[in-house]
């Protein structure tokens, strides 16, 4: 795969199609998009790294595409990134360019020349955006192209599609919506507005959006907004990813979609697979709402037991392993890692799943300790470590021991110590993680439960939080 064959392989065919319309009224054809992207960066011999702080504006999209088209690697971060975390990333990755708030800044004079960047490296994305970890997923041009092509294939995308691209570009799901539609010559309706704003729905209606994407909490918003009563005849497809939507909700959305001539398509994926791994075909959702479905086109799913042997029997649990051209090159934790090639032949998802007799996969648990907060995969171990470091450095709250457990949309923090104010801790942790306090639950225990080996017993710990719903400050142990 050469650089010029990422998303723009067919742009010459689409030249007069409108590629992008923004909520602010900007409009660019594919021809304009191509010429705008060509004007961003001066020619260079050496492969450069661009740090792009995206605000879902056409300007930031142009910089992203310019980087892809000119063979630069690009790291995407959301506009909400804290200034000190951005500084950390700059120190850690030594980018040559920074694009932020409409300005492209050359950092070459400030920063010592970084180590070389692998020729296949295209995009760097965060896995656990809100924890501020410098860990990045390394995606190649092949990864980006392959996933976009698979998505375009199973969603049967045509140049007539007009997706409402409201998810942040720095989020793999958001980026995949843009990539898959730009691959087929469709019109991306780009906005930074949220569903809770009038302009979002005006834009949706006036520009006749044909599809809407959302993580579970967007579906909660849609319910709250009485979306099902809105008159949006052009909107025919709803996709859902970014964590598990409760089975009864999946059923309800599928039923409503069927009765109203729409398609509801639940999908499963990881940033480590560029975005998508599997999808549940619309016609199967009602019958199998608990399933994550089948592998995307050109991908392969299998289940492995603890010894790495493949499980072929129906309804037997094993770790879900994915193989396909969209599996990342590997992780990076700093500039020196960017010269590394492809190190990930198969992706161990960390999810424990089964395959039913119809060949559909369903998740039954997790091998690793991950939860999703607002669609962002969050490592409990990472959060725990960071909170420990934070309170070790500035222990104003009297914390002696701290451990995290939880489930999607509920981070549970258990602490032991003297005179701890759970409220203050909850506020502090939610601010630190950049999430709403309602998804952070804090419990003060006399001591944290441990196993015989002296490690934290997370099963017991979780049961302290499951036993009641009210945030108690008591010590159930």
């Amino acid at each position, binding site marked *: 795969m050469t650089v010029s064959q990422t998303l723009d392989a067919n742009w010459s065919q689409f030249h007069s199609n409108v590629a992008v319309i923004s909520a602010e009224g900007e409009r660019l054809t594919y021809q304009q998009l191509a010429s705008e992207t060509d004007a961003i960066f001066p020619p260079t011999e050496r492969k450069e790294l661009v740090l792009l702080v995206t605000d879902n504006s056409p300007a930031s999209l142009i910089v992203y595409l310019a980087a892809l088209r000119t063979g630069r690697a690009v790291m995407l971060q959301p506009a909400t990134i804290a200034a000190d975390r951005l500084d950390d990333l700059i120190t850690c990755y030594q980018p040559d360019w920074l694009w932020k708030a409409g300005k492209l800044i050359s950092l070459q004079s400030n920063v010592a020349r970084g180590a070389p960047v692998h020729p296949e490296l295209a995009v760097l994305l965060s896995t656990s955006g809100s924890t501020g970890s410098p860990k990045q997923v390394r995606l190649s041009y092949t990864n980006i192209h392959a996933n976009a092509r698979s998505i375009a294939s199973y969603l049967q995308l045509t140049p007539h599609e007009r997706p409402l691209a409201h998810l942040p570009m720095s989020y793999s799901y958001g980026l995949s919506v843009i990539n898959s539609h730009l691959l087929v010559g469709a019109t991306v309706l780009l906005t930074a507005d*949220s*569903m*809770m*704003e*009038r302009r*979002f*729905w005006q834009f949706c209606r006036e520009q006749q959006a044909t599809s809407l994407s959302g993580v579970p*909490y967007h579906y*909660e*918003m849609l319910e*709250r*907004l*009485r*979306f099902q*009563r*809105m008159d949006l005849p052009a909107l025919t497809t709803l996709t859902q990813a970014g964590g598990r939507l409760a089975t009864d909700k999946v059923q309800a959305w599928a039923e409503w979609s069927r009765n109203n001539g729409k398609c509801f398509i639940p999908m499963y994926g990881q940033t480590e697979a560029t975005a998508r791994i599997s999808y549940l075909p619309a016609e199967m959702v009602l019958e199998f709402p608990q399933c994550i479905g089948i592998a995307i086109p050109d991908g392969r799913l299998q289940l492995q037991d603890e010894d790495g042997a493949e499980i072929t029997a129906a309804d037997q649990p094993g770790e879900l392993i994915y193989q396909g051209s969209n599996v990342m090159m590997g992780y990076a934790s700093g500039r020196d890692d960017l010269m590394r090639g492809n190190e990930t032949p198969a992706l161990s998802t960390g999810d424990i799943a089964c395959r039913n007799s119809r060949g559909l996969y369903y998740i039954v648990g997790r091998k690793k300790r991950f939860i999703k907060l*607002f669609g962002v995969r969050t490592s409990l171990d990472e959060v725990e470590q960071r909170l420990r470091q934070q309170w070790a450095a500035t222990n104003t709250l009297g914390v002696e021991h701290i451990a995290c457990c939880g489930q999607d949309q509920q981070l549970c923090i258990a602490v032991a110590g003297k005179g701890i104010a759970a409220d203050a801790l909850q*506020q502090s942790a*939610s601010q630190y993680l950049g999430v*709403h*306090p*309602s998804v952070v639950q804090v419990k003060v225990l006399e001591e944290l439960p441990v196993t015989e080996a002296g490690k934290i017993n997370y099963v017991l710990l979780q049961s302290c939080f499951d036993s009641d719903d009210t945030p108690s400050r008591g010590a159930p142990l």
Partner: protein
Amino acid sequence: MTLEQLFAESLGVAVDLVHDDLTYQSIPQWDSTAHMLLIARMEDEFGVMLDTDDIIDMSSVAKARQILAKYDVQC
């Protein structure tokens, strides 16, 4: 519960930060997620069923008071 208290709890901010001129997205705590929680709390607390326009028009504390008044909620 006063409207100010309800806002303070839903947004996770101190009650003295809540005044009529406080607008959506003027503080980082009042984002789209908090807005949804705010709406949910309001419906529970005041026993109303807000429609789409109410939700997307509720762009300030003053506006919230005005919208709730439509449903005979004085707060």
